[in-house]
């Protein structure tokens, strides 16, 4: 889609907004009565500058310094006053009497923790007093400040225990994944009660995001709630309210990190140095090196900075959406149309591009007095366009002296580097994708209290579908090679032009999902006894057609929950879920998983009731067991581990001629079916407190958790000797156990003084883990074993620095097994003192994933100005910046370890390698250069870099027009803002030119974006 269409679209959205607004304005002429009133807070103090709306007339006004207001209403019987003040509960006031002033309207503040909160749990909304689970919540509106196309990313740094990891920001790529892990496990993400991909959500359609961390809150989901759940609910319309919200922002994205590569002169010098170190003859002549140095012959001795030429500093980012919501006593609606577009950083030719349109309609209809219908429908249309390949990884493998890009208007490649970036980006075609997806829920809610007081039932179905087609052209231009004859340079054709006239299908898929749910709820209080009980049945199927023989993923479970509260203080909740795994044989599919949760609202106890400092204090604990659905064994074709599968295979050919031409196949077991295994399980324990202190200005939440993963699926390979004769196909069994434990928590302080509001908070998750039993060699030396060790340790050598002289090597007199060792090579500790440096000298140490994740946020508001800053960081962990695989696969290697592995496998070098060891530079940070020895390529402490970082993930500076001004402009609210993401980072890894969140972004993978935008939000 071209830029003009996009601009038109934005204009159209704006026009719709204005028309809608003027319609409201016309309606406001119909007013018939004037009403006076007053707005106060919980302490009966008047509240000024609060917007009051009349539902039918759409009139609105603002309270004065005394909290008083006067407004026109349509009819005292049917009209309502609506006060929707952010941070407070929605207030809808009936007008009973047109003459007398209204009673003072009290606004109830929503505290992070407190009695008037409630949590949406699967199948049931639970008041916070009755909740026994550890849950953190954030509203969708708070996520809008993060400029990104990927919804999950906007959660970065905001919720304790939740780690959002962005891999890359390539527009239009399905692989541009953002992962959410909670307490070290990959989160199960539900949108409106169904497991769904959240990446296409727009913050403006999201009501709230809850993180259900412990088991009691998610036990009802059965084995599909075995790891922490991110429970997202979309917005609903509010009765007696009518809102239109328009938001548009525009900005630019750049890469957070791209390594800097050496120029031709350095490259040639270093390559020769590496050869010299190996006792080999130099590859580049002195004339060549001189030519690289003075750029005297750009044809034969080129020196090209590809990043300058092929990568532009910024790419545009656009986002806009418009929401309509409202309702009356019968029908509520919420609808949204949104657009988000981003582009790649390619400077020439094809650019990565992505455009996404989304719409949603959520409607609640009261069909009869006791039946409510709810329908949520959303649709997404996404288009993407990508050049073949990734310009960043191409550059990482292409030294600046490889060959000129163009000579005599011909595109040049060379034998060693058969790549031409002009060809890649301009002439080799593209892929374009279009994805259409829809997510639909419909449910009926029956209020059965007429028959049994407190009884209700819900039945719902949902079906989702998405299809994706990728079309493209695979072509290339004429590619030439430089040739030299008698000192004159000419070219010869290597690859002839290939042009594709029509698009061809590259890939496609269709995915479908259907879910049926029935739930019966009983909720009643008898004096001091409150009982909430719930029985639910859940059944779902997910089909994906792009894999031949793909088996649909199926879910079936039945859950029962009973929650009993005594005197609003003591809570006990028992969850029993009978959950079926399709990975098990018939007859052993269902298992019953129990969970118990306890709650104590301490602040209700007499000894705390009148404590001025403690407004709310609650202690939760839960303990439960749940099965895990996702288990597979490598080498097995499916996860139906109970099946014995046979397959044909080549055979030993006996006999003469006929058999030779036509050998009969043999039969072998492809998978040895197992009878003796069960679903792997987690035992979960959580202990948490949540509290609201000092006049609700300080919210505190602290949790200790422990998850024991046991009965893991294993082949017990190291307990099965060769004499078993399995040929690699051992039946599955339960073996293996590890546990994860840690703390997470948050503190949030909020204080308003006059026009100034401060909110600041931190959250953190500190986690450790330990292997308990592992399928590993039994007689392995203790220091090499997993069992009993931390789960995040590296297996590596200890580096004692670099050998500084041949004498040092000779005197030490150990055998090196990774190749020739010379001065400037890494000196490894002989860990087991056997006089030989080999794999037995590796030991477990360090932490490859940070143990402490933390987020910090601060927001300052003064009158209309607001500054919001969110940061995220990690510490107590390391990154191995070099390893063998790292080295061979991509050019990043260059950053530290990419000495030449061989003369035919030359990679680009980052400038981080310039400071290498040599006889003249014995303080070099990199080891000596070599083309042959693998000694320096081993995983060792030498390459271990502290992975601590802190990054400003999100900053927003906004100005909201004074209400009086916006009122004149017929708007309820108008805010202009500037936003940014991934703005600044403090990291040890920055000096290597890599991103602290993903070392591969910007070199072998597409970069992560740093985005700046400005825009406007209008509320009518």
């Amino acid at each position: 889609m071209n830029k003009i269409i996009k601009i038109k679209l934005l204009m159209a959205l704006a026009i719709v907004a204005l028309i809608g607004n003027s319609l409201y304005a016309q309606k406001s002429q119909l007013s018939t009565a004037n009403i006076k009133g007053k707005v106060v807070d919980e302490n009966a103090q008047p509240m000024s500058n609060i917007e009051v709306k009349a539902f039918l007339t759409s009139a609105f006004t603002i309270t004065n310094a005394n909290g008083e207001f006067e407004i026109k209403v349509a009819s005292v019987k049917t009209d309502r006053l609506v006060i929707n003040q952010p941070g407070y509960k929605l207030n809808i006031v009936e007008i009973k009497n047109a003459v007398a002033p209204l009673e003072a309207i009290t606004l109830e503040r929503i505290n992070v923790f407190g009695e008037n909160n409630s949590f949406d749990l699967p199948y049931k909304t639970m008041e916070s007093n009755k909740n026994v689970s550890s849950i953190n919540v954030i509203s969708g509106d708070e996520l809008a400040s993060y400029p990104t196309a990927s919804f999950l990313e906007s959660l970065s740094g905001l919720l304790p225990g939740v780690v959002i990891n962005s891999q890359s920001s390539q527009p239009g790529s399905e692989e541009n994944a953002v992962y959410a892990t909670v307490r070290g496990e990959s989160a199960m993400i539900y949108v409106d009660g169904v497991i769904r991909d959240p990446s296409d959500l727009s913050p403006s359609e999201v009501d709230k995001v809850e993180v259900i961390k412990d088991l009691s809150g998610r036990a009802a989901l059965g084995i599909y709630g075995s790891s922490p759940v991110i429970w997202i609910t979309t917005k609903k319309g509010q009765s007696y309210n009518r809102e239109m919200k328009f938001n548009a922002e525009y900005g630019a994205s750049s890469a957070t990190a791209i390594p800097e590569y050496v120029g031709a002169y350095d490259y040639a010098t270093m390559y020769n140095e590496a050869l010299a170190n190996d006792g080999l003859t130099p590859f580049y002549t002195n004339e060549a090196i001189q030519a690289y140095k003075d750029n005297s012959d750009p044809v034969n001795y080129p020196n090209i900075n590809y990043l300058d030429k092929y990568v532009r500093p910024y790419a545009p980012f656009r986002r806009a959406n418009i929401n309509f919501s409202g309702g009356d006593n019968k029908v509520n609606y919420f609808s949204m149309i949104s657009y988000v577009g981003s582009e790649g950083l390619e400077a020439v030719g094809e650019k990565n591009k992505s455009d996404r349109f989304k719409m949603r309609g959520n409607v609640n209809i009261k069909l009869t007095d006791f039946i409510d219908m709810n329908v949520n429908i959303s649709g997404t249309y996404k288009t993407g366009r990508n050049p073949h390949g990734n310009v960043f990884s191409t550059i990482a493998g292409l030294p600046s002296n490889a060959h000129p890009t163009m000579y005599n208007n011909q595109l040049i490649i060379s034998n060693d580097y058969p790549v031409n970036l002009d060809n890649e980006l301009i002439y080799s075609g593209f892929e374009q994708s279009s994805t259409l997806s829809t997510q639909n829920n419909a449910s009926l809610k029956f209020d059965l209290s007429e028959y049994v007081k407190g009884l209700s039932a819900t039945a719902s179905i949902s079906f989702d579908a998405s299809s994706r087609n990728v079309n493209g052209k695979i072509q290339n231009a004429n590619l030439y090679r430089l040739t030299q004859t008698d000192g004159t340079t000419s070219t010869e054709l290597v690859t002839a032009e290939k042009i594709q006239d029509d698009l061809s299908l590259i890939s496609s898929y269709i995915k479908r999902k259907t879910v049926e749910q029935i739930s019966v709820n009983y909720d009643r209080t008898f004096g001091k006894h409150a009982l909430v009980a719930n029985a639910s049945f859940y059944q779902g199927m997910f089909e994906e057609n792009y894999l031949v023989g793909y088996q649909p993923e199926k879910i079936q479970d039945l859950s029962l929950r009973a929650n009993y509260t005594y005197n609003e203080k003591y809570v006990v909740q028992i969850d029993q879920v009978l959950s079926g795994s399709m990975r098990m044989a018939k007859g052993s599919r269902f298992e019953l998983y129990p969970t118990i949760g306890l709650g104590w609202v301490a602040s209700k106890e007499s000894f705390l009731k009148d404590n001025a400092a403690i407004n709310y204090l609650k202690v939760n604990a839960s303990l439960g067991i749940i099965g895990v659905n996702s288990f597979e064994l490598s080498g097995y074709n499916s996860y139906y581990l109970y099946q014995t599968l046979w397959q044909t295979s080549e055979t030993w050919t006996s006999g003469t001629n006929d058999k030779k031409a036509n050998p009969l196949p043999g039969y072998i077991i492809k998978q040895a079916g197992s009878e003796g295994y069960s679903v792997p399980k987690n035992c979960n324990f959580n202990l948490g407190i949540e509290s609201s202190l000092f006049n609700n200005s300080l919210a505190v939440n602290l949790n200790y958790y422990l998850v024991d993963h046991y009965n893991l699926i294993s082949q017990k390979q190291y307990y099965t000797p060769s004499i078993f004769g399995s040929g690699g196909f051992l039946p599955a069994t339960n073996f293996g156990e590890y546990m994860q434990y840690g703390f997470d928590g948050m503190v949030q302080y909020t204080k308003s003084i006059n026009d100034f509001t401060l909110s600041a908070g931190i959250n953190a998750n500190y986690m450790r883990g330990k292997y308990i039993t592992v399928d590993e060699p039994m007689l392995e030396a203790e220091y090499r074993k997993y069992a009993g060790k931390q789960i995040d340790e590296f297996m590596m050598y200890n580096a004692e620095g670099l050998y500084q002289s041949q004498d040092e090597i000779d005197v030490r007199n150990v055998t090196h097994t990774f190749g020739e060792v010379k001065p400037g090579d890494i000196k490894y500790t002989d860990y087991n003192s056997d006089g030989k440096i080999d794999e037995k000298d590796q030991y477990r140490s360090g932490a490859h994933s940070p143990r402490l994740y933390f987020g910090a946020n601060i927001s300052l508001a003064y009158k209309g100005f607001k500054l919001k800053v969110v940061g995220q960081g990690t510490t107590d962990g390391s990154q191995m910046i070099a390893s063998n695989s790292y080295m061979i696969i991509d050019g990043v290697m260059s950053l530290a370890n990419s000495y030449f592995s061989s003369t035919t496998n030359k990679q680009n070098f980052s400038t981080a390698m310039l400071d290498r060891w040599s006889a003249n530079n014995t303080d070099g940070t990199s080891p000596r250069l070599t083309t042959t020895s693998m000694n320096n390529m081993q995983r060792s402490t030498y390459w271990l870099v502290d992975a601590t970082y802190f990054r400003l993930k999100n900053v927003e500076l906004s100005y909201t027009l004074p209400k009086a001004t916006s009122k004149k402009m017929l708007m309820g609210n108008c805010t202009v803002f500037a936003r940014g993401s991934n703005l600044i980072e403090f990291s040890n890894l920055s000096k290597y030119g890599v991103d602290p969140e993903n070392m591969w972004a910007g070199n072998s993978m597409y970069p992560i974006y740093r985005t700046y935008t400005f825009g406007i939000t209008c509320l009518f």
Partner: protein
Amino acid sequence: MKKIYLIIIAALMFSGCEEYLDKVQDSSGMNEEDVFTDYLNYRQFEDRMYKDLNDYLADYDYTYIAALCDEGYTESFQWETLPVAQNGDWLRAYSLGQAMQFKPVWNSWESIRIANISLAKIDMLTNATEEQKKELKGQAHFMRAWYFYEFLRRQGGMPYITKALYGADNFAMPRLSYDETAQKIAADCDSALALLPVKWDNANLGRPTKGAAMALKANTLLFNASPTNNTSNDQKKWEAAAKAAWELISFAESNGTYKLMECKSNDFITYKTPDGVKTINFVGGYDSIFNFLPYNDEIIWENYGQMQNGGRYTTFTTRSLAVGGIIQGYSPSQNIVDLFETQNGLSINDDPTYDDQNPYVGRDPRFYHTILFNQERWSSNSDYYLGLYNGGTERLNQKQYSYTGYLSRKFWVNNVDKNSKEEHPISHCIYFRYAEVLMWYAEAANEIGGPNFTFPGATMTAADALNKVRQRVGMPAVNAKYLADKNSFRERIKNERAIEFYLEGKRFFDLSRWGDASKIEHKQVFGITISEDKTKPTGYAFNRNSTPVITLTFDQKHYRWPVPLTDATMFEEFKQNPGW
């Protein structure tokens, strides 16, 4: 109480709807019933047990057993395993890439499992004749014994697994002694012997026969009687070996199933000297044992499947002239060349007619079948003489050319176009042939009673048996000076085995079982320096090298191969061999 209530509700709700979770039927519907009830399927299952047969001639095998003893030298083209193995670090060789002699043989446990499953499931078979069932069982017994024999002559005794193990079984099994294992192998051979046919029809050539079972038993017992494995020199073991060998000889003699390939034709080679091209005539036909013919009566048990894989180079065969010189990955050693007797039946040191400056005339005919020497003509349609002198076209001090001054000719036949890149012989990968059975008898009988001893019930003396092998290539009977006692005759048997079975995967194991492999004369592999000198009879001067091409590492511990580390470190009961 609550739980019971729950279960009742659960039962009500789920009865009849668990099918929702059923797997959608997929296309591969074969189950155990299908495989084991039908004869053809059953046989195809069982035939997979042949897949681990080791191919000692394989071109892709970069750890030739022939390069780990004094037969010759080769350097691998690309893999690191061979130098590691030559250096004696066999434990490490298991873990490296192309360790064909090492890890894959150890993987034969899978084939043992197939054999065991096949023996256990035989009653499931519905549409097979009794004869067919016997054949299936016989082959399973034989192949189980075969793989244990492969382990025996490498690592030694093993737990003798006779049923397929499952998860609940005890895996911590102690290793049996060498003798115990050998007896179990012999017992399996006896079972196989009773079940297997004397011969297979043409469509099933290559499957084991009665004769193969007898040969496997005889060879196992010979290994069991050999000095390394019979440190107390228990005569009973030699007697058992002699008896088993003689049983096969008398079986062969009585029905003519096996006999030595007759060598009655005439063959010749030519070579260039300053005096012109000269010719050497010798007995022909010996090469037919190894080549082309689908089968011959000398072969008792071979890796026939490999032969069926079609034309291939072996590293031991010379390759075409077309690439500008003969290429061969393998260089025969001077050690072996010196073992070929003169045509007078004397060792070169004992024969005064032997001239070390004209060393290739008047040698055992097998020499000309086996070794290519300097200035020998090697071309079918043009005069191309091998430059195996130092600096010659076939001796450029590079991989694929000769390191020693010799190339190997064994596994070639004359009627193949030597100039062609494409044509190369298909060699039988023979495990047992009749000549060897005669020599087993000779060896065992000599150990019991010396060269002139006839084992009770037999009709040949030890020397008679050996002479049969010599006579078919026109060599005189063993000279009387070597028949004085069992010691001097033992040396002739060793000598005879070295040249008769050159490159047939025997010598490494022979040197090992005799306890000779760790001796310096077998660890040092020599070549010869050949330089142009017109005054010499051949136009070249021959100087014995003082520095070996390689000195192999073979210590006491190498007499028993290590078991791979994973197994050695899994259960205390499964012991590593001493020294590893």
